[in-house]
């Protein structure tokens, strides 16, 4: 039997939605099932209406489903708002709290608070009761949740662990005793596969940075990028990393450049508004040829925009930010797994080409948890591309910006040797001192821009998902991979002919290779979370490829296969 259900926990901020969601996702993962989770929240610490949604299946899942099978309603608003999405699904709620009849075909009453007080003596255990009740309804073995509770609360002492387990059992038993045969979803016999990691996009970027040997991170907190800063800070002491919270984003990237100039692997994390303040320092990185990794977690703008929602609206901004011209690199991971490896790659590219490298994510990927294969650290290398002490000892003179065929000037660090390291934001000569002559300008401009050639060779072409040739080719970039791939799967199962050409290496682009891949006979549809088709514009400008159609979403919500399929129907592509 095939299992694929979606569970939503809805309620006010502060009601423990995330606690329940994370614990359930972990529970399913620990049992060996595939999990995908995502969050919808408003920019507030208390109140409002938020939800956490988990899709659990015995086959790989990498997108939200458009079907909702179970709703845990912690407030009345969740019931009112999400009921219609349920179709024939079920709701778990505390009937007494909502003052509604205790049972009908869809509404299953679990007196969360009463049970919590009865077993734990406190309303604090309400969330744990709810977790137990969900598993009871699904006839899912409780031991996995017990393991999760043990991991979560062991630091707080055995008594807290024990009370939580009791509360979970009480919730479980209530559901089993009252509704055992009334829920059509049962995971009692779900097939078990091998253990996977469960990780979200932000943690994966943080982990990638630690694996790459990041030494310094300076940032100003901004949703949805803050998770990366928090993650690195949480592990900073053990990993010999220094994290500094800057007074503003101007300072953050300037600090990163100072640290990088002096030899530290350094990164900053931000979102569009903060990145706006970094535009000046981005050019400084370009001019002084100082490596920097910039994690840009996108959210809908302009200005404050929709702080907790998602969009891919900053691509052309990242590509063009700062006055003047200089090489830069943009990578956009498609999954947390990809984010791990691409982040490590970003550091190597930044060091090798002495440029700023972007990792572009968005709120959707930042907060979405995926199950995936264990990250393989043997695939990670740390290539600093610095002159060694011995090399410097044998050099008579050292010039920071020496002219080379590939444009890369060997890099030494200040204080490393007797040789002085001079960097300047003015146009400068090979030594690094101000030089405003036309001849020098041409030499230096060409030297810097030559680096793009080598960099382009390091870019990977897009993934082709589905058949090589198809009637319709969907084009996507970054975080939309999951819903796009699932769309292709579902439509091909229906007998349609679709494939997906998906990019994670965004800039510089390998124009020729891409032209060969995309100029097939099918209709091309570029699918993006923005209003102007920014990636389509990039394809046109860089590779001379014109897509036939744009499929755009800019309401702050992530793509789902259902949304894409409806839009393709409307456009009469399928």
């Amino acid at each position, binding site marked *: 039997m095939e299992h694929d259900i979606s569970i939503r926990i809805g309620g006010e901020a502060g009601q423990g939605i995330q606690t329940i969601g994370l614990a359930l996702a972990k529970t399913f993962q620990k049992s060996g099932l595939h999990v995908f989770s995502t969050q919808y929240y408003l920019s507030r610490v208390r109140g409002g209406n938020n939800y956490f949604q988990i899709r659990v299946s015995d086959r790989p899942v990498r997108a939200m489903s458009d079907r909702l099978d179970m709703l845990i309603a912690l407030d009345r608003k969740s019931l009112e708002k999400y009921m219609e999405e349920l179709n024939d699904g079920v709701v778990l709620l505390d009937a007494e709290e909502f003052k509604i009849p205790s049972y009908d075909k869809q509404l299953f009453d679990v007196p969360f608070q009463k049970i919590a007080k009865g077993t734990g003596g406190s309303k604090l255990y309400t969330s744990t009761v709810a977790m137990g009740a969900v598993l009871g309804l699904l006839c899912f073995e409780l031991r996995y949740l017990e393991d999760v509770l043990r991991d979560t609360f062991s630091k707080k002492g055995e008594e807290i662990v024990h009370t939580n387990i009791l509360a979970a059992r009480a919730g479980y038993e209530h559901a089993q005793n009252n509704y055992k045969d009334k829920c059509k979803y049962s995971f009692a016999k779900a097939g078990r596969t091998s253990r996977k990691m469960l990780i979200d996009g932000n943690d994966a970027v943080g*982990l990638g940075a*630690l694996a790459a040997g990041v*030494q310094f991170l300076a940032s100003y907190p901004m949703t949805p990028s803050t998770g990366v800063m928090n993650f690195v800070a949480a592990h900073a002491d053990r990993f010999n990393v220094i994290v500094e919270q800057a007074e503003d984003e101007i300072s953050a990237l300037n600090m990163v450049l100072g640290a990088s100039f002096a030899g530290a692997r350094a990164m900053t994390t931000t979102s569009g508004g903060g990145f706006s303040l970094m535009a000046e320092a981005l050019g400084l990185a370009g001019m002084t040829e100082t490596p920097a990794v910039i994690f840009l977690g996108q959210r809908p703008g302009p200005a404050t925009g929709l702080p907790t929602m998602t969009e891919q609206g900053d691509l052309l901004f990242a590509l063009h930010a700062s006055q003047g011209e200089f090489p830069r690199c943009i990578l956009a991971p498609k999954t947390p797994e990809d984010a791990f490896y691409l982040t490590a790659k970003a550091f190597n590219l930044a060091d090798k080409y002495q440029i700023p490298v972007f990792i572009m994510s968005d709120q959707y990927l930042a907060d979405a948890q995926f199950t995936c294969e264990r990250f393989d*650290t043997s695939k990670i290398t740390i290539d600093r591309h610095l002159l060694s002490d011995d090399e410097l000892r044998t050099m008579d003179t050292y010039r920071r910006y020496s002219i080379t065929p590939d444009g890369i000037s060997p890099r030494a660090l*200040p204080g490393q040797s007797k040789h002085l390291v001079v960097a300047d934001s003015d146009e400068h000569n090979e030594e690094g001192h101000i030089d405003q002559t036309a001849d020098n300008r041409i030499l230096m401009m060409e030297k810097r821009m030559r680096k793009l050639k080598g960099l382009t060779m390091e870019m990977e072409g897009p993934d082709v998902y589905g058949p090589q040739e198809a009637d319709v080719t969907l084009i996507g970039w970054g975080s939309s991979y999951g819903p796009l791939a699932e769309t292709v799967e579902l439509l091909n199962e229906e007998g349609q002919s679709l494939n997906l050409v998906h990019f994670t290496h965004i800039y510089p682009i390998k124009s020729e290779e891409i032209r060969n891949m995309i100029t097939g006979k099918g209709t091309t549809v570029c699918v993006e979370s923005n209003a102007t088709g920014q990636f389509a514009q990039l394809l046109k400008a860089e590779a001379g490829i014109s897509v036939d159609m744009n499929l755009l979403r800019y309401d702050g919500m992530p793509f789902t296969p259902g949304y894409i399929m409806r839009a393709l129907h409307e456009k009469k592509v399928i």
Partner: protein
Amino acid sequence: MVTIEDYPDIETEWCPGCGNFGILKAIRKALVNIGKAPHEVLMVSGIGQAGKLPHYMKCNMFNGLHGRTLPPATGAKIANHELTVLTVGGDGDAYGEGGNHLIHAIRRNPNITAIVNDNKIYGLTKGQASPTSELGMKTKVQTHGVVNTPLNPLALAISLDCSFVARGYAGNIEHLAGILEEAIKHRGFALVDILQPCVSFNKLNTFKWYTERVYRLDEEGYVPDDRIKAFERSLEWGDRIPIGIFYKKEKPTLEDGFGVLGEGTLISSPKDQTLVDELIDSFM
């Protein structure tokens, strides 16, 4: 041994008679007296006539953006705290464009010496008011005279309990070199505001004007250990203008707060990649 020959003269683009010459001389002198060789020193500068100063020095240098001397200096100091890090910029750089960075650098207290060539005018853009321009000073932009209250950098720094606050005068190189020497030797953030006549654009605060007014705090038996007294002195401006060290306080530096730096520099800190695998396992 480090000698003044290690810091040779380099041709400059400053106006003849500029106050910057005295400041440049004093910086060289201070570094020689402390015994710091050029390769041990990193100067981070901003934009403006003062921002060009490191180009006329022989040492490591990062000439960054206008107003942004302190953030890259802080980053570099964290990365390699064995470097002697000095920042240099003008009053527009440090107190205008970079005002917020100054406030927070004082709060962080990195072991950095911030030198501000304070000529109370914008020189590179040829004569607009700066944050420290005196009330009433007429310029080509402030045509009716400056109406904004001048920023008092010393009072600001002392109010933030900055660990070292001093004022020098470009017309007294010996005294300025002494202050800079103390500032560089001091463990913590040191702000050295330097009265610098601008011979081209500031016709008010001239060498003559300053020489008639400045007096040395140390010659009056002043001891820079009291924040309230320091604040009082920082407000003194008019017929008598105090120069010297106003305030000095030992307190933990930014670097002291990072355990990893106790073992050596950040850039030489060991990496244990097995920890990455352990961390990955916690997601299984």
